[in-house]
């Protein structure tokens, strides 16, 4: 049976709260990317080269989408570009291991000095991402291109020593606000570059901005404020934004409902059904366990996917970062069951 609408239209309709024939099944890239080893081995486009090289990045994003069945292109494949531009040392990882911050640039928020406003324009990896978005969006009009950003709190905690940073959220609010606010301005500029390159949706993951880490007061004061500043700016560019919040959510549920994102993506142990009941206006996204995807049997993946469909989750996606050793069969089972209308 052929679908009546394209994956691109379906995702955009879901994000705009319009009716769809079924929930899209996506993997937005960034923290949540499906560049698993099996895909790279089969397609020959590999990390860590594809973190830098536009052609390999484009080809790998294409391989991921076609081999896994996820109904989007999702790039980049890491969460380190933002911190790299702002001065931190990056270890680009290996085929199996994602890039990571080797060393945060600054010891404390008070010490942060920012690069020129156009620093993102001059970064090679930013250019590779922009070029990939341009190529994919012009070649494949039916498949949505999602550009992933690291959120303001996580980016700030990637340029300032994270433990000091977390302490300063309480002790040095002025420096904390200054740093996170400026980080957000850079992220807005980066989002603008992605939009100009043809991105359809921006996805923001902010794994340091969790209720478990920050608690409700700091989550409100910092995470909600700056995530909304970023999302509002993306909306002003005419694009929808997905926000992923990691971790348990009990402590910050009312605050999460204040986020301006077009969809809320959550971890596996958060009940999206409860969120739907309490906040019917939220477009829910998620949340198939990545541990199940890595270690579970295909039959279990099938029943868990059916369960998400029965719960009428608006957009189906993995709950968190996928392990690079996740079996391809489990992912394709997830996407196939998600697409099956029967």
């Amino acid at each position, binding site marked *: 049976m052929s679908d009546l609408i394209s994956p691109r239209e379906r995702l955009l309709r879901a994000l705009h709260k319009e009716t769809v024939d079924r929930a899209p099944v996506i993997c937005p890239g960034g923290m949540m990317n499906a560049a698993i080893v099996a895909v790279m081995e089969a397609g020959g486009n590999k990390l860590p080269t594809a973190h830098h090289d536009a052609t390999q990045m484009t080809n790998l994003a294409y391989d991921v989408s076609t081999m896994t069945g996820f109904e989007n292109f999702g790039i980049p494949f890491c969460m380190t570009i933002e911190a790299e531009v702002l001065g931190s040392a990056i270890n680009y990882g290996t085929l199996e291991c994602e890039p990571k911050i080797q060393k945060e640039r600054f010891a404390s928020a008070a010490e942060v000095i920012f690069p020129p406003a156009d620093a993102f324009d001059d970064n090679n990896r930013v250019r590779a991402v922009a070029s990939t978005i341009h190529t994919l969006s012009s070649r494949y009009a039916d498949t949505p291109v999602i550009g992933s950003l690291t959120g303001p709190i996580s980016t700030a905690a990637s340029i300032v020593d994270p433990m000091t940073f977390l*302490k300063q959220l309480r002790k040095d609010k002025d420096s904390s606000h200054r740093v996170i606010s400026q980080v957000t301005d850079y992220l807005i500029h980066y989002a603008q570059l992605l939009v100009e390159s043809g991105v359809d949706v921006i996805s923001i993951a902010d794994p340091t901005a969790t209720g478990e880490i*920050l608690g409700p007061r700091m989550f409100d004061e910092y995470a909600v404020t700056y995530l909304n500043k970023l999302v509002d700016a993306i909306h002003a560019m005419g694009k929808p934004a997905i926000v992923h919040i990691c971790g348990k959510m009990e402590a910050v549920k009312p605050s999460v409902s204040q986020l301006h994102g077009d969809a809320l993506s959550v971890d596996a142990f958060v009940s999206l059904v409860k969120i739907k009941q309490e906040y019917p206006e939220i477009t829910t996204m998620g949340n198939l366990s990545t541990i199940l995807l890595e270690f579970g049997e295909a039959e279990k993946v099938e029943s868990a996917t059916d369960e998400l469909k029965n719960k009428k989750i608006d957009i189906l996606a993995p709950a968190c970062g996928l392990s690079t050793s996740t079996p391809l069969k489990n992912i394709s089972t997830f996407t196939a069951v998600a697409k099956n209308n029967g």
Partner: protein
Amino acid sequence: MQEILQRLSDAILAMDEDAAAQLAQEAIDAGLDPTEVIDSACLDGMERVGTLFEQEEYFIPELLSSADALYAALDVLRPHVHPSVAERQRALPRVVIGSIEGDTHDIGKNVVSLILSTGGCEVRDLGRDVPSTEFVRAAQDFAANIIAISTLMTTTMERVGTVIEALRKQGLRADYLVIVGGRPLSPTFARRIGADGYAETAAGALRLVRALTADPRPKRPGVGDLIVL
């Protein structure tokens, strides 16, 4: 508890570094035994912080700020501690802790490290992205009795077991208790890799260390006798 000790405990709870340092000095000036001040006021303050953290009244920024107040008091008190206390410290649980190689997420590990240190353990924190060989080397060097391994990523969780393999290969498995924790891990996983203990939370990790090193020390748990907290 004497009023000054209560106030010091309260200052730690209130995350007030200056007050904590000042009250510690006042306690010394009043002729109180610094060891007694540490054991009652400082540890009491941190225990109360730990309770609020477990109850989700305090979160990581508050926990770290309270620890700073604690350390401000300890900086004043420690130079006055009688040398015989060094003897006593040898009997404290000695823990090497780190996030496994490939994993640079260490907020959770840092919290566990902090709660263990402030809860009366001698801790050497190896940081993040730690290779299995480094866990073993550091445990020998530090004369640790416990190796604590953390990971936040499903990508790296399989490597947690390589520390235990490395201990076995070098014939050192019986010398250390291995405890594991982190978001993707579970008691089942801990059992499978042959760990001695698993804790879901940072406060649980402290209870776990205390249980594993209780005096009289329990017999090393056999395979499958995992302690879960």
